[in-house]
């Protein structure tokens, strides 16, 4: 049996993976749609509007942190505003490397989707 320290090391290594997970890809696409005005709330709203499900804002930040660590997005701190209790927004933007990764993922998914009889006709 592995010692507990190895377990956390394995989880750390898993976080370093370079490919995009499903939610990470969703966040990246929302960022691309929003452009310069992408921050926690607007990203969550964008995803909610297209997926019809409630999104945890903390989950969005967790995904953004992972993406930032991989170099796929970068961030800047906005000005504090009174309606947010004096707290600043953090704006996010997709980097060139991030855009390349989204294109790569798109290509992979499109190739996999092609020619699947189960997905033809739109009926599940």
């Amino acid at each position, binding site marked *: 049996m592995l010692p507990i320290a190895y377990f956390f090391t394995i989880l750390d290594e898993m976080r370093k993976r370079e490919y995009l997970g499903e939610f990470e890809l969703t966040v990246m696409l929302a960022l691309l749609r929003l452009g310069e005005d992408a921050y926690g709330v607007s990203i969550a709203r964008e995803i909610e509007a297209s997926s019809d499900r409630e999104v945890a*804002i903390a*989950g969005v930040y967790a995904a953004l942190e992972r993406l930032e660590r991989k170099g796929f997005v970068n961030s800047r701190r906005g000005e504090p505003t009174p309606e947010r209790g004096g707290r600043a927004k953090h704006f996010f933007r997709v980097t060139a490397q991030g855009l390349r990764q989204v294109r790569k993922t798109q290509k992979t998914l499109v190739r996999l989707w092609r020619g699947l009889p189960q997905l033809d006709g739109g009926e599940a």
Partner: protein
Amino acid sequence: MKVIPPTLATWMLKHLVLGDRNEALEGDLLEEFQRRRSASWYWRQVIGAILDHSNVMRAGWVTVCAVLFAAVWVCGLCLIVSIKAHSPLQMASANWIPYGKSDWIAVGIVFYLGVPLSVYLALARNLSLRAFTIGLGAGVLVVVMLPFFQSRLATPLNYVLEYGRAKHWSVVLWLRGYDLMQGCLPLIAAAWVAALSKIKMGTLGPQEARPHASEYTNN
């Protein structure tokens, strides 16, 4: 009109969610709460943030071990108190008096939730292990000394404590606030000494020590 989100949820958000984006997250939740005005939505978001796996990962294996340790500690106390409460010696004693349960349930809840929470708060913030050990030692010392003073001093406090020792077969462990206090005191003391030492010494927790995430991309 400005609507204020649930105070307890906000406190939990501030203290139980780790990371360098807390300011932005708090602001986002407040902004969205003003729009949606739903306390249940706010609670769902806060609990989601606390239970998010990246939040647990930030706390690290030391915290996970500490919380497990605290849980085992409390379960052990439950077992010990249960055995004591059901022993023939206690059942036959004059102290076998049924008492009002609601107060003791409240005490029990405070200790059952308070101990793991205190340990979590102390270690999740990467506090001084030295201060934690000193606090633990002091707590153990107090617990060891307490019965010595109790047996010699017939004070009103002693009366209250003795009353608290009364037992009834149906009174489960939740109601044994006094015994729990004795058992949990070292851990609570350790957590709070460590927390106070951090404030005094101005040591850096993981939130402050970790570089801002944007630095990764700038390099």
